[in-house]
């Protein structure tokens, strides 16, 4: 059997399975149909009371549970559904025995208000933390421990899918999903594993989570109509809209996939990441870290800016991100930016936070496979300061072989992936 290597002599990282859940629905077909129809999954929040909130909309996933649930429970459910779809498509391994490692982007978890109230109900007097500790010491609430461990969700996924080794739970804020993919790529390139299950999941829209972002003035407050609030790259953009979802990818050594006759959906050709020491929530005004992350990803893939057919934008719809991203893309792609399509899935699904990099990587591979670019919806007021081809409002047919997908996050996290069509059979 011949051995294939990339331009740098490393194993090629193939994608053999994709799965996704968002507010648009469960599975690739439902999501793709909605995305290319320009339909929004953002709606008025019904999960919890919205009295007194400045933002009352989100792209929550509301079709999975009938009973109340916690963020880790929803995050786990979303991840399970996306991973089932991806693993089934890949045909890799036996059920419950995935022959590779698990890299998982999970939202940081903590004990939530209903559970805190339950503990407070156990004690008399002031409900302070000494009291909560006394309630905990009764050991009547043992299940809360496992529920709210940082490593709990990934552990359960590892159990369910039978992944090998020590599962990684990671966070790089809003670029976490892309980092999970990057870690899978690195492990396969090192030859440590021949397959990796990479997942980004986020089901953490609850009142306090929303209020935290609201207090940082990060969210859109244009609540009516809900589906028009996320408007990346528009002049009237005023913040992001929280979303939920999960994306899962089965990555596999290309030769391993070929040898078992798997359908190769594409390759992760390159990854780039840079830190930004400028500010906790704001990007360097010169966009340098984002520029370098894109350039690193291209260099890692052995490609040049001319090879990119489409940019799957981070495009959060915040005034600052979209300006910085547009400027950084112009720095990397130069005059080509006037005609290089760039669109933001977040205009329809909101910002799925921890999951975004993985969800948008799945959509990028669908874009390549289908030859159709999902639009940036709600683009009615172009921003003259950032003239871009955002594929406004209507999906567009286009031959797309190579995509760069951007993810940027709080804490100076910048991760870019170069995703490409499967190589011609060799």
């Amino acid at each position, binding site marked *: 059997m011949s051995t294939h290597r990339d331009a740098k002599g490393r194993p090629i990282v193939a994608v053999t399975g994709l799965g996704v859940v968002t507010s648009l629905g469960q599975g690739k077909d439902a999501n793709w149909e909605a995305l290319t129809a320009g339909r929004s999954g953002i709606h008025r929040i019904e999960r*919890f*009371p919205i*009295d*007194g*909130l400045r933002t009352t909309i989100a792209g929550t996933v509301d079709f999975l549970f009938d009973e109340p649930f916690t963020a880790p429970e929803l995050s786990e459910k979303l991840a399970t559904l996306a991973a089932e779809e991806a693993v089934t498509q890949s045909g890799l391994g036996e059920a419950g025995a995935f022959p590779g490692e698990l890299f998982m982007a*999970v939202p*940081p978890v*903590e*004990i939530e208000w209903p559970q*805190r*109230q339950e503990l*407070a109900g156990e004690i008399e007097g*002031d*409900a302070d*933390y*000494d009291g*909560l*500790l006394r309630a*905990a010491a009764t050991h009547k609430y*043992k299940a*809360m*421990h*496992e529920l*709210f*461990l*940082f*490593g709990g969700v990934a*552990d359960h996924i*590892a159990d369910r899918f039978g992944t090998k*080794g*020590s*599962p*990684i*739970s*990671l*966070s790089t*804020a809003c670029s976490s999903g892309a980092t999970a993919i990057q*870690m899978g790529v*690195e492990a396969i390139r*090192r030859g*440590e594993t021949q397959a990796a299950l990479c997942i980004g999941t986020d089901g953490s829209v609850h*009142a*306090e989570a929303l*209020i*935290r*972002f609201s*207090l940082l003035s990060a969210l859109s407050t244009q609540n009516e109509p809900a589906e028009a609030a996320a408007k990346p790259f528009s002049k009237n953009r005023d913040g992001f809209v929280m979303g939920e979802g999960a994306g899962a990818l089965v990555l596999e050594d290309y030769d391993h996939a070929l040898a078992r006759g798997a359908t190769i959906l594409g390759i992760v050709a390159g990854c780039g*990441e840079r*830190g*930004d*020491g400028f500010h*906790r*929530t704001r990007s360097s005004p010169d966009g340098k*870290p984002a520029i370098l*992350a894109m350039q690193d990803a291209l260099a890692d893939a052995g490609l040049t800016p001319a090879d990119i057919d489409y940019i799957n934008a981070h495009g959060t719809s915040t005034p600052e991100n979209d300006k910085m991203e547009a400027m950084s893309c112009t720095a990397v792609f130069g005059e080509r930016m006037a005609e290089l399509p760039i669109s933001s899935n977040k205009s329809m699904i909101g910002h799925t936070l921890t999951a975004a990099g993985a969800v948008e990587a799945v959509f990028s591979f669908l874009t390549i496979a289908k030859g159709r670019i999902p639009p940036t919806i709600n683009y009615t007021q172009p921003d003259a300061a950032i003239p871009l081809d955002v594929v406004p409002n209507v999906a567009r047919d286009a031959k797309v072989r190579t995509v760069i997908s951007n993810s940027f*996050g*709080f*804490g*100076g*996290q910048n991760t870019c992936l170069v995703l490409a069509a499967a190589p011609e059979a060799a």
Partner: protein
Amino acid sequence: MKRDVVITGIGLASSLGEGLEPHAAALAAGQAPIVDTESFAPYPVHRLKPLELDRQIPKKSDQRQMEPWQRLGVYTAGLALDSAGLKEDAQTKSELQVIVAAGGGERDHAVDSAILTGLRGMNETGAFLNERLMGDLRPTLFLAQLSNLLAGNISIVHGITGASRTFMGEEQAGVDAIRTAHARIASGQAEIMLVGGAYNAERRDMLLLFELGGFLRHGDYAPVFGRHSNPGLIVGSAAAFLVLESAERAAARGAKVFARLDNVVADRSPRRAAGAVEASLGKLVAELGPVAPFALAVSAATGIAGITTEEANVIAGLNQARRIATGDLLGHAVEAAFPASIALAAAALDAGHASEAIVTGVGHWRGEGAAHLSKA
């Protein structure tokens, strides 16, 4: 490609103090631990020896933007950079990749207590909760307690613009952080990395999660491997950061090498049956290859019933190894427990206490890890 990986910087801070000196002294002398059994009674806690924050975090505005675990981590990362001679090396800091094992999730106790008390007896709680959270939450608390913002603050305060990744998942996050950093350098994917974790034990909200599961020891201090009658973990505030570097790079810049990090391995046993941890950890230690007699065995064990004995059994299988429990010196520092154990092992090798060291770690709920270090 499999390259040698060496430790060229160590930052440590705990109840014993900061830097290598007090920790090396405690390793050598078997000093009595510094445990406070009053402040968080009935939970004993190894409290951090206060730091002069200005020495590593010069701007007060930066200090104010962080919760104590972030400050502790940023401070200790600075110690590691100083130790490696990299603090002023802008070129290296622009390439330095960071992996942080982090928890987070600190709460505002006064706000939580007032809200919980106010919620008592209410039927429709949502509007009240929204109003109080909108009014009472400090906007900056979110960032001060967000897991990946320890790495973010390390980047801001120390001017590191290489990329960072944050691993979560309690003790195993610390194991996997060291394992991944080692693997990336050994394989040529990176040249130099800053890796570690920080844990602030002096918080009732952090104790709460462990107490829910029944994992905390009540009462007085006892050594990690001597808690049979009253098992459980005793937490300690501690942080450890290491600069890992390819041996070639370290040699080229004439860096001091504390120890060689030969290998790091990890796994996850489902722990459905007694003996699962011993089998898993035993297999990992075997994967590390032969260990010379009289090696040092540094254990990040928790003191929890069953699994601590299973870990002890694995260590007892090493030929005449000298066993040290990190928890006896620093307390259990959760995400930082394994990095701190690696740091202690490297310090001991550097001081000539042994020529090889094995580090083991078994998470309080999940995860097993092991590492092999050699004298440089």
